[in-house]
């Protein structure tokens, strides 16, 4: 019985780890930052062209993720 409890706790913590707000928010933050860097970097016009889409993706993701319960 105690083993069972342990296993379900493990499963829950795994699900929490993947769908928790913290890590997802960190990913969204990274995408936004990447988008802004792409917008202003002087190296590649292609990266510049895709910057807006990246930032938009990150921002939308951040907005959705912030709805996920802590």
């Amino acid at each position, binding site marked *: 019985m105690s083993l069972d409890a342990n296993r379900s706790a493990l499963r829950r913590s795994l699900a929490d780890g993947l769908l928790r707000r913290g890590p997802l928010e960190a990913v969204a933050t990274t995408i936004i930052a990447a988008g802004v860097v792409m917008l202003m970097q002087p190296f590649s016009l292609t990266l*510049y062209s895709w910057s807006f889409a990246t930032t938009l993706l990150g921002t939308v993701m*951040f907005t959705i993720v912030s709805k996920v319960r802590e």
Partner: protein
Amino acid sequence: MNELSASSRIAYRAAMVRPGVARRIRGLSDRTLAWLFITPTIVLLLAINIFPLLWTIYLSFTNYRANRPNAPVIWLGADWYQSILTDPDVWAAMQVTAHFVIWTVVIETVIGFGLAFLIDKKFRGHGIWTTIILLPMMLSPAVVGNFWTFLYQPQIGLFNYVVAFFTGRDASSFQMLGDVKLSPWAIVIVDVWMWTPYVMLICLAGLRSIPDYIYEAAEVDRASKWRQFWSITLPMALPFIMLAVLFRGIENFKMFDMVNLLTGGGPGSTTEVASITLKRAAFESWRTGYSSAFAIILFVSVFGLANIYVKALNKVKSR
């Protein structure tokens, strides 16, 4: 003590309440009252911020020109976005912005943190000197930009005179605002002058939030001052530094007023930051559709960064 006087005042006033009015307002539940209180603000923001934003999004897909309001409006889809995001000139403006943002933020953070660190030593009279240092950031960026053009005058300006005095060069041999190499730095200098106090103030709050007992424990462990700085002071002040960096980054990313008055984007387009490109497209060539698309691109970037900023704000708040 305060509570007592407040409640006695309340008891006195309660006797004066007219029953009719009281009953009518008592009829409002807290829920209704909450909405009554919040709605005016939301309505104002919807009318003056959100509605225009939605309109901008619509315009960014059309060929509308504000100086020809009666011309037929054609739906262009994402054409403007495509042309902006493949335009090397706009890309160049973004790099000018990057130069401005990166250097101002780096220099302001270094000087601002340094000043905060020194002020935190609580020397005599630090209060008054802190207030004096804070003055520049309270001024109007437009007025600041304008009077710095006076200081930067090659013949008569104080800045050129001081540089000439210390380097021995001729004061009229260089033009801070007219030279292609110098003007990007001219705007950085003014921004640093104006906004270093901001970074300083927030860093100071960070330093003051570090409890003394941590340093006392470090002293007991005989950690050197150098070590204490790197393993206590800096990490503990970091959330505050991040806050200042993000805010200055966002503000300078959309910088308009000061640069517009100092250089107006010139000479050529060497100081043409994104907002000035946008202003030229929107209010000089009247390419409203195009500039709307550009505005949306800038807005999304700022909005994304604002999300991160609020996250940093909450982190600091929970300290």
